[in-house]
């Protein structure tokens, strides 16, 4: 197990190197640069001076060399849009809301999804089941920004119950988190609900469940101890990739709700051709996904004793 873990850790290095290579190449293939005319009022000479200062007029392979030299020293480079600031500094300021949004959304999606999935399975073909399936279908078919618009119009504009934009300052200031979390979390919650329901129904038909009933155990004990526990194995393994996706996939929601996170910085960086910031955020997201996948693989062994890595 330890050997497997170490090997997987070492594999992260070439994967991330490939990510830098591909991203750097693609980024420079796209038209436009950070100092194009029309983005400010400076003269052509002033812009050329900046292009030279940041080596953007040199061959791409050379620029990649400069970038990797800095990166190996832990320096993501200067921010080309916010001149004077560094990418390290901006990422340091932006990570908290993104991580908080990711964690809260994962919690929301997991709790709501599992709860509705269990409810639907236990009350199969009842109104509750139809409601749960209806929620899952609606959640899966409504884009998060559309849901966000509807929630904002209802809860912020019409009812004035919740703010339309912004992010929480701390745990006591939870209101700004409600709408973004629901908007972002409804799709994965629906997915988890469907998987939970299907898994529950499969387990409910197992022989050991019938045996438990034959032994005269109470239905609640059977559900919690024998059905839910075993039905959770595929659900738990799903939550890993889902949480990685939520941590890295909140660009639209961060932009829409004006959340000061990395997702918003990423979108701005792409639009502004802020090369160092694009590289840094892509690398960061790649690292999160690679590590989340590793954790999920290790979790398989934890939740299912039949799986052993060598």
């Amino acid at each position: 197990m330890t050997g497997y873990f170490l090997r997987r850790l070492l594999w992260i290095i070439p994967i991330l190197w490939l990510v830098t290579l591909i991203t750097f190449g693609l980024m420079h293939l796209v038209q436009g640069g950070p100092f194009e005319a029309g983005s400010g009022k400076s003269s052509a000479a002033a812009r050329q001076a900046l292009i030279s200062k940041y080596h953007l007029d040199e061959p791409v392979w050379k620029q990649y060399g400069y970038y990797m030299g800095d990166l190996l020293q832990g320096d993501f480079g200067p921010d080309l849009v916010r001149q004077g600031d560094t990418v390290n500094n901006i990422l340091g300021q932006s990570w908290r809301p993104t991580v908080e949004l990711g964690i809260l959304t994962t919690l929301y999606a997991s709790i709501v999804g599992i709860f509705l999935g269990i409810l639907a399975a236990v009350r199969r073909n009842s109104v509750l089941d139809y409601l749960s399936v209806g929620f899952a279908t609606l959640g899966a078919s409504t884009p998060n920004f559309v849901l966000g618009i509807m929630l904002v119009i209802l809860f912020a504009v019409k009812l004035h119950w919740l703010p339309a934009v912004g992010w929480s300052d701390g745990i006591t200031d939870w209101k700004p988190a409600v709408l973004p979390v629901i908007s972002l979390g409804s799709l994965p919650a629906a997915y988890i609900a469907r998987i939970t329901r299907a898994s529950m129904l499969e387990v409910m038909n197992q022989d050991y469940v019938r045996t438990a009933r034959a032994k005269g155990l109470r239905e609640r004990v059977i559900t919690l101890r024998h059905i839910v526990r075993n039905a959770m194995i595929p659900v738990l393994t799903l939550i890993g990739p889902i949480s990685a996706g939520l941590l890295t996939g909140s660009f639209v929601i961060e932009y829409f709700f004006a959340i000061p996170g990395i997702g918003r910085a990423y979108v701005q960086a792409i639009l502004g051709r802020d090369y160092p910031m694009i590289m840094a955020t892509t690398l960061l997201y790649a690292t999160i996904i690679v590590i989340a996948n590793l954790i999920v693989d290790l979790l398989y062994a934890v939740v299912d004793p039949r799986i052993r890595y060598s």
Partner: protein
Amino acid sequence: MNARKKLFLLLAGSMTAMLVVAAACGGGTSSSDKTATASAGGSSGGNTPASGSTSAGGAPSDIAPDNQQVLTVNAQAEPNTEDPQAVSYTYELTVNHQLFMNLFDQDPKTSQLTAWAAAEVPTKANGDIAADGVTYTVKLKPDLKWSDGSSLTAQDFVYGIIRGYDLNVSGKAYGGFITSIKGAADALKLDPTSATYKQDVQNALKDSVVAVDDHTLKLVAESPSNAFLSNFTLPITSAVKQSDVEKQGANYGVSSTASTMVTSGPFKIKEWVPKDHLTIVPNDQYTGGQKPYLKEVNVKFIEDANQAYNAYQAGQLDESNIPTAAWPGIKADSNKKAEAKQEEEFGTRWITVDVTIAPWNNKDFVIGMNQATDREAIANDVYFGLREAWTAPCVKAVLDCNPDAFSNLAFNLDKAKASIAKAYPNGNIPTVTLETVDDPTTKALATTLQAQWQKVGVKTNIVTTDQATLRADMKNHKAGTQITGWGMDYADPTDLWAIFNTSSVGGNNLGFYSRDQYDKLESQQDAELDPAKRKDILNQLQDFLAADPPVIQFAVQLRTDMYKPYVKGLVSSPFDYINYGDQQLVNVYIAKH
């Protein structure tokens, strides 16, 4: 184990319940329950002018208590910096204008140059413009101070103005924009990567930007220029405190050091939370004019226009821009309409055409496309009245703007067909490309133009892309067109007409328009100090542009914002660098409500 499962179910249930109930438990921040933090206004209290400042003549009778003097506005995007020499975008300049004094300012109503840090505007009559017409003496107001209490001197202005020529600082902003100072052209030719660059820039300007004493500056123009003094309203010419700049180094003006920034204007930065908001509070040491009534201004960074408007309706903002699609609904609602303010800006919208490539290199074709453009339909159907149909590149308020000169470009399908037939007698008109950014209004504009131009036999290929690609395509002569315009920095017409100069090609002249005769006329109009003669030259210049247009002009920008009824004292400015209201927000206050 059982207990853990119970806890799990309890958590699941309570979380769901909480999310439902949470929304019902309270509201967003309403303006009425906002209070300034204890020290937000510093210790100045009230609006008693400091020594040397202009008295407000007493506070307005309907002003709300100090703890309610909090204004929350939206900057539409986060500033990249608040370094005056590096700011460029409206969302940066709007805030910066509250933080740093310039020598001069502009009256938001009359557009006339007014003294700010300067004691008065130099004129020949007051003897501050020398007989040579190029040497200006600017006397500063007495007792000007930085926010740290130290004296602000003429040397601080010298440092700031010369720093504006350091392209490592200003290259992405207004660097190279001001070329009328003697020595500026030499300074702008220097290599920014050279080890002696800063010293070389200083040497190039040492005889033209001079501190005669602590309170007197000497400025020398390259040649007589009507617009010369107007340049000193721009933030790039603000005084900055040298020791502060050197202390912060490359971090000067960025969010992490902003709260310690030494400022000279009526406000200073209290905090800057990246990607969320910045807060400015009154600068107790400000002696450049009236002190603000407001105790705190929160500037939010909400980029999505619809969400900003939602936040305004939810009570999170006291001011908001209006999304185009929302305007018809606002106009139809008398309550909402009462909160909207609409005013003509010193800015026009046009389609820049690349006059070096076909078919735009044929002036008859460009004239024909102007004539084929139904501006009224665009103003009404695309912008729903948020833009005004307009045929001239200048707005009425610009000195000696002559809209009649451009009457030949007015919408007229018969004339359009004739002009295009003149350009392409055989009828083989090339398909034109209209590259647009991916936003609903711009795309609606593109499809409207496509339909209008189809009526005169011109096929239009619409390409949707992002701004950076579009700029690169223009630079590389691939796009051919760009929907853009010009927001004026100051009222003097040079600010507008200079952008069609050959010297602006590659910078603000995106269509590569280069005509010797135009260059000559543009240069003459700035140098001609006799108003009547200047008017004559400006008329010739406009006639020239009407006969050989560099753009397809279609609208005047109208600034349309919503303000809560309790926000009083706003005097809208038409200039490019102000998002909202009064030039310095000093007259703005929250009324009792």
